[in-house]
């Protein structure tokens, strides 16, 4: 399984500037975007309880087939990182008050899941887990 890249808040500004990055609000329909030449899409969580960007990430990854970086920004809660990874994000910018060690631990709580996801479309019932 691909592991989410965790970016400390203060490191974000120093990220490679030559890349083609677009930032979109969480009510934008990903199907309307022009993604030619885009390397990175920053999706936004205005509040961590607003889960619209999870669907945007899923659609970008699975429906539209975007292969670049999908980054979680805004009010990113470390306890949501695993969901972000499974929904198609591959990087997340941590808030300044969040610890990397707490964040990393959140990615390792579960060995596997019931349903398929953006990273791993097969479900438990179509993979070997179902026979146990």
């Amino acid at each position: 399984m691909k592991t989410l890249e965790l970016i400390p808040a203060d490191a974000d500004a120093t990220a490679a500037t030559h890349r083609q990055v677009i930032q979109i609000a969480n009510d934008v329909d990903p199907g309307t975007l022009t993604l030619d030449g885009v390397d990175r899409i920053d999706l936004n969580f205005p509040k961590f309880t607003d889960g619209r960007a999870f669907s945007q990430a899923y659609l970008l990854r699975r429906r539209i087939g975007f292969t670049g970086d999908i980054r979680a920004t805004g009010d990113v809660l470390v306890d949501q990182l695993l969901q972000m990874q499974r929904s198609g994000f591959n990087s997340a910018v941590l808030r300044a008050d969040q610890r990397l060690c707490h964040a990393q631990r959140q990615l390792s709580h579960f060995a596997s899941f019931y349903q398929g996801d953006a990273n791993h479309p097969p479900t438990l019932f179509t993979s070997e887990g179902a026979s146990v």
Partner: protein
Amino acid sequence: MYQYTDFDRQFVRERAAQYRDQLTRNLNGTLSDDEFRPLRLQNGWYVQRYAPMLRVAAPYGEIHSRQLRVLARIAREFDQPSAEVYANAVTTQAKLGTKHLPVGYGHFSTRQNVQFNWIPLDKSADVMDLLATADLHGIQTSGNCIRNITCDALAGIAPDETIDPRPYAEILRQWSTLHPEFAFLPRKFKIAITGAAEDRAATAWHDVGLHLLRNGAGEVGFKVLVGGGMGRTPTIASTLRDFLPWHQILNYLEAVVRVYNRFGRRDNLYKARIKILVKAEGQHFIDEVENEFSKILTHDGAAHTLPESELARVAVHFQVPASIQQALAGVSTVTPLGSGADQPAYQRWLAQNVRAHKHPALRAVTLSFKRLGHAPGDATAAQLDAAAELAERFSAGEARITHEQNVLLPWVLARDLPTLWQQARALGVAQPNIGLLTDLITCPGGDLCALANARSIPLAEAIMRRYQDLDELFDLGPVDLHISGCMNSCGHHHTGHIGILGVDKDGREWYQISLGGSDGSLLSGAAVPGKVIGPSFAASEVTDVVEALLDTYRAYRRPGETYIDSVRRLGLEPFRLAAHAVRQETRDGVNAEQVQLASAETVSD
């Protein structure tokens, strides 16, 4: 019933460990209360008026005796507040008139879960570990996510059933559990399933209601309803699909929930349920869902299409238990009771609490948790243990929590009925009142819940006390009386033949009364919210109002006519007049004690 695989078991343990990590961070200050809140909610932990409440999932209502025993242990060892918390609760509630606040018990909820009211939050991770030892958890029993899926309490055993919904409910449970995309929806999302002719699962009142059926070609599929719900805007679900092939159900629900996640309102909590989106968008909503579904099928690879093998793997868990199959080789008649004096009481119990079964030698028996001295649906630690004992002895260890807040034993041999009756009676759960007036549905209300505007339990107690005469109860026949302490409608007042809703006005407890609601059962007719019969009543008047309504029914009823049918035939007016005639406080404008119930200004978790 479903038996956990090694995967399921490990998953629940991992979830308990994750929760312990979150609780630890919250208690040491590195996870704020606001951030912890949705995380604990999705494990079933609310914070209520005086203490946390834990809601344990009983998937589609099914529970095993060994699980009931663990719930008994939690009631006994953990549902115990500190002296300080308890003293504060007792003192504060005494000002409202509540004389007794029990501790050490579980409560059966209308969504077939089990709740505890007094567990200190710092013990919550220990409780999750203990639950996990019995394949239990609180995953998604609260929060803005796909909640525990509910079912017909007679699923798999009802004579009028075409298809057993339980394997599908289990498949839906697995699919919805920790779904990464749908954990932060605009609001909660509730699914109910039935496979019977009669809708005993109130499907039209759910965000999604599913009816299993066969089409003209004999293929199995679902009728899909969407957008039902209670709360401030009671709404009956609309039909989204008349027939969806069963193997597409997960793909289709993915489409429904994705459209809701993207377009549901998040600016106003009271307008955030899917019912509002469905109403606002109409055909456009249906088009969006169908378009999304079609893309899941044609573009995304339809990863969640169910193979026959998966249905078969899960369905094997839902056969008649082996011990019952062996016993069925014996006699199938009811053994007559020896003692003549008890005979009429036994016959009444048979008539009200025992239901026919798909198998002619079996019966479904409901243990009534509606009795004086306990709030509706409450069971002490000892009673939970005793219920486990009955399930073991008479129902292959299986029990079900019903929407009406009772416990049903699904596999009782007809020949065991007399013995079961005697044991249930000794336990105090054989009142022959299932479906009758005193089998009322009640939320915890203002004695426990931080959202309530008024108390529910004392009202339920007063009504039950007035209607203890069994002859009178039987004469009144079936009546659904539902009490909610606030507009969040946990007591399903909208579906009551008599619905009682606690409202807060001038810092006092008032009760709005509605008539003619239906959950969609055969008795009650097509699902419809009840209609309010006028200005709110004072707490002191409500029992008299209930009596006036029922007396009006007795005065006007035709032979054999039920209360709800009389209300439909006569209309509200004679009932409204009778209720108005017994007003005392609200007639004279006399005010009772001014005590404010400090209810939280928010909607339910």
